[in-house]
């Protein structure tokens, strides 16, 4: 389990270049760093559910990102909360 306040990097991985898949991690976050704010619960992995495979329950987190760090012309001071599953997160701190 990743504790609130932990800095994490979203894996810079692109499974969609390797074949059919279903991913709930947006493109714009791959390789970006944010902060875990909350464990939202454990949910069946949508990447398996979409293909009717057995879907283990995975921890789902709210991760906070600084919009200006994602886009140079993003709204200054604004931040972004996104639901991200644990296998997509690498702890950096």
């Amino acid at each position: 389990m990743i504790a609130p306040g932990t800095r994490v990097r979203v894996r810079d991985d692109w499974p969609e270049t390797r074949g059919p898949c279903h991913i709930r991690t947006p493109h714009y976050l791959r390789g970006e760093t944010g902060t875990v704010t909350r464990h939202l619960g454990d949910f069946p992995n949508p990447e398996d559910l979409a293909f009717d495979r057995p879907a283990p329950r995975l921890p789902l987190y709210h991760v906070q990102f600084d919009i200006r760090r994602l886009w140079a012309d993003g709204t200054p001071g604004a931040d972004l909360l996104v639901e991200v599953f644990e296998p997509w997160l690498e702890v950096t701190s």
Partner: protein
Amino acid sequence: MTLLETDSGRLLAALRGLLAEKGITDRAEIAERIAVTDAATPERGAAMVAKAWVDPGFRALMLADGAQAAESLGIPMRGMPPLGVLENTPDLHHLVVCTLCSCYPRAVLGYPPFWFKSTSYRARAVRDPEGVLAEWGTVLPASATIRVVDSTADYRWMVLPMRPEGTDGWSEERLAALVREGDMIGVTVPQLA
């Protein structure tokens, strides 16, 4: 003829036929679920917001577990994803988007408005929320920062807006009538007419 060229009405009829044939569901259950979906409108969310404005206990429940709060008002939540409620304050304004598709708290807000599903809103809300709010004519307190919530997975999110000034002593019904769909997505804020 490919699947993409096939008439969608024929595809739907074939799918319904297969589901019935395999005993997974029947016409009556499909009709019942359609009726449940059609019955959900933003008035449900507005009733929750108004109650939260006058009842601190309900407000606490709604922020802790939106689905349980909805059910306590008789809103059917069976089979629905968890409902998260985002509280706006003078310092923090929430804006909800689903960049991947059109995830939306249908049980309490009904069908998503057409613009919520547009690629333009989905692309811009996460990048230039200030510009999006300005186009809606939404003015935030000078102290407010914007928090965008991208609804990417298993939760559905609605905004609990701030109660407008000048509504002291109003009944729940009168307060609920102030709350619009956009106020609970965060593109607008409730205002006196």
